[in-house]
């Protein structure tokens, strides 16, 4: 079928075409109060057609595969390509010399009966509910995903990858006097048997309990430690600063800074598509370029932007395999850990804040300026030890400035579902907005 579309496009005058097709099958289950509350199954195939007409590249995405629709959309693609005024490289890729091999067993989640999946959620819910401080479990959710990606183009490239995984979590609602807090722990697995409801419940309870009884703290400047998860989330809000597109469009402060010291010497940022601890191993990007392990920042020195085919041609460098979803993003970008334990790292802090929750990352982060200001909660650090819970504070700073003032990096590297990973990180000081 895809070859027919390519042939049809060629007939209409497109010089090159590519069909990028993703078939996504999923099952989601939600349990609430011991009963199945949501049960969703899906099977959706989305196609992205990229075509070059008179040297201009345009894209269409569609889900209606009827022949008449494809014909109409190809006409639209040509009209759109003609309306582009910018002169930029337009490339359909002939392929990388070799592709990394993803060594991972593929587990067939559909083999496990639905009743067993529901039981996992019921167990998870009841384990959490058993704790005296838990008033209810907001929902216990399970999702399994099977994604098959095919890339076919007129340059003769044909690639295929498949990814299967499942994840589960339950949001516990914790109460102590007037104070209500929620907590959850997402567990992603490649084999259903790796779920452990008791362990997940214990972690959720541990988090929930630690948040209770929190109070605000006086406004001021404090030493701040971000948990591994929260620093990874903060980092993920700033990945656009490493994009070749952002450099080309004047949208990153790292423009013209390749080869320069941009962060502290203790900062090493690596993009590794196959990192053993990452959740997703990625052999090639959405343009068919082989993904590769690459240092983005080494000892604080910026080593180069992430590129797709277009920006690598503009900057006359090799493509880095970071062309995803029509733009540029890292695969598994992480901050390298050290051998220092978390306890050792916080030991010198007399009066500081340990942040375990950041809320509103979509609104409180300005990637262009580097400024961030975020609602946060966590624990007070007193005399080198974690102390009482802290809530309703705002942590503010500037990313570029902060990365020059990292005092400590722990050994507890953890990858988030976003693909971004980090250990816990100690910042010399940041402004905390709290009580008057």
């Amino acid at each position, binding site marked *: 079928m895809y070859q027919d579309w390519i042939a049809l496009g060629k007939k209409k005058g497109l010089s090159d075409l590519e069909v990028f097709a993703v078939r996504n099958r999923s099952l989601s289950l939600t349990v609430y109060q011991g009963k199945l509350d949501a049960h969703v199954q899906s099977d959706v195939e989305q196609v992205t057609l990229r075509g070059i007409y008179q040297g201009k590249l345009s894209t269409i995405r569609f889900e209606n595969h009827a022949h008449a629709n494809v014909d109409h959309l190809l006409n639209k693609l040509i009209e759109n390509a003609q309306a582009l005024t910018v002169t930029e490289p337009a490339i359909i890729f002939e392929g990388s010399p070799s592709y990394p091999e993803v060594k991972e067993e593929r587990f067939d989640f559909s083999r496990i009966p639905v009743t067993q999946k529901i039981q996992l959620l019921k167990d998870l819910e009841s384990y959490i509910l058993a704790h005296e401080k838990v008033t209810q479990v907001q929902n216990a959710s399970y999702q399994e995903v099977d994604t098959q990606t095919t890339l076919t183009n007129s340059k003769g490239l044909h690639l295929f990858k498949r990814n299967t995984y499942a994840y589960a979590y339950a949001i516990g609602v914790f109460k102590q006097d007037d104070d209500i807090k929620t907590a959850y722990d997402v567990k992603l697995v490649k084999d259903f048997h790796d779920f452990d409801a008791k362990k997940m419940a214990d972690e959720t309870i541990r988090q929930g309990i630690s948040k209770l009884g929190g109070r605000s703290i006086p406004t001021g400047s404090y030493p701040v430690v971000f948990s591994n998860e929260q620093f990874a989330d903060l980092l993920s809000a700033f990945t656009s600063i490493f994009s070749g597109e952002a450099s080309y469009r004047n949208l990153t*402060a790292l423009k013209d800074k390749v080869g320069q010291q941009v962060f502290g010497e203790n900062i090493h940022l690596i993009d590794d598509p196959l990192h053993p601890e990452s959740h997703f191993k990625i052999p090639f990007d959405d343009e068919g370029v082989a993904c590769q392990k690459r240092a983005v920042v080494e000892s604080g020195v910026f080593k180069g932007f992430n590129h797709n085919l277009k920006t690598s041609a503009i900057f006359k460098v090799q493509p880095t395999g970071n062309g995803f979803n029509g733009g540029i993003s890292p695969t598994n970008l992480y901050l390298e850990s050290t051998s220092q334990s978390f306890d050792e790292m916080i030991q010198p802090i007399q009066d500081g804040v340990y942040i375990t929750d950041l809320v509103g990352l979509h609104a409180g982060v300005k990637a262009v300026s580097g400024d961030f*200001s975020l609602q946060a909660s966590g624990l007070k650090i007193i005399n080198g030890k974690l102390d009482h819970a802290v809530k309703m504070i*705002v942590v503010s700073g500037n990313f570029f400035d902060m990365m020059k003032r990292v005092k400590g990096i722990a050994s507890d590297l953890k990858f988030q579902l976003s693909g971004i990973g980090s250990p816990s990180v100690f910042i010399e000081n940041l402004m905390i907005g709290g009580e008057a």
Partner: protein
Amino acid sequence: MLYKKDLSFLLQEGLATGADFAEIFLEDTKSSVIRITSGEVTQIDRGNTFGAGVRLIKGIDEVYGYTNHVSVDNLHQLILNLRASFQTESIVKVKAFKKPQPIRSTIVKPMDSVPVSEKASKLQHLSRLMKSYDSRIVQAMCQLIETEQKVLVVNSLGTYQDDLRAHTRVFLSAVAQEKGNMQQAYEGPGRAMGLEFLDLLDFDKLATEVAHSAITLLSAEDMVPQVMPVVLHNGFGGVIFHEACGHPLEATAVAKGLSPFAGKLGEKIGSDVVTAYDDGYVDGAWGSASFDDEGKPTQKNLLIEHGILKGYLIDYRNARKMNMDPTGSARRQSYKFSPTSRMNTTYIAPGKDKFDDIIKDTKYGLFAKKLGGGTVVPATGEFNFAVQEGYMIEDGQLTRPVRGAMLIGHGKDVLFKIDRVADNLELGQGMCGSISGSIPVDVGQPTIRVSSMTVGGAGGKK
């Protein structure tokens, strides 16, 4: 192509193992994004979302499935899979389809009635206006985002309702740079209408304002964190109500008792000056639609009257759970989501105060002229939202621009702390993300004052 008899058959099949409600949602949506960067047309993307969602309900139990393989056979297979969750006798029959009601909204200029090049040249002009405003503007971007969503909702209660919804939005963004200091400003007005939207507003003026904002931010000081009175300007300032009160009034939070406002109908939840609505249909408004995603005509819902809680936003399934009537508020991003209660056009009603008086009567505080996005956790009621453009109020006068301010608070407190409401109601547009996906909504309010809020920022002594 699915005929009425096919849909009727599929619905009946859905009910065969004991479900008491079956629904099919069919969607064919086309979308287009045109992007202009520094005067050049750099990207034009076209998209199509096409598929069907099937929902079966028994009592308050629900199963949902979706696919883009839309044929009678495929949908039948999907329904067979779904109905396996219910294993009793069929208890109800599908009712005959009622005649659909007329669609209230009209589209004057559909997206494919204007050549792409003509749309692009209008945006190029706006981009150039921003770029030429000041030599420190290093980047000026415009985007035209258009969608036309064609839907058909049918259910076993006899609903057979089609709807055609057009959405058009213009994004303007300018980046100003002075040495290492880079600042970005933006505006993103939108309407539920076709390209006639481009003739509705004074976009030249708006482009100049965006460029001006970016330049102003260059000289803005970092907000010094403190607790202080905050004056929230009209329009997008309404995001405070959206986050702090709108989400907790949705049945998704109320039915589970997760909302601080659950079980509080008729009780005082805010100060006397607060009256608020969620209106499903304001002609042409970004968040409006003729029908909700369960095929029910949308309506104007009173939420709060003089501080007293009057109503929730309720969808069909939660109506069963709560033993209340649905409010025409069921929404979903696409066929990939089961519908649930969501906001449309939510706003605080105008009061009697004048904007100038509110500023004049504030000895010291923050004037949040433009807000960015925000978040709320309904279970805890804690919310936050970012100030995109702010100024200090000193001795009743607007003085220095400040940047990076973040406002945080508690939904149940903030409504009581609103002490002034002006008469200048305006709406602002945004995309709201929640369980049933990302949907267009209007937030809105006149200028209001909150007597005390925690304001975060990076300023002050380190």
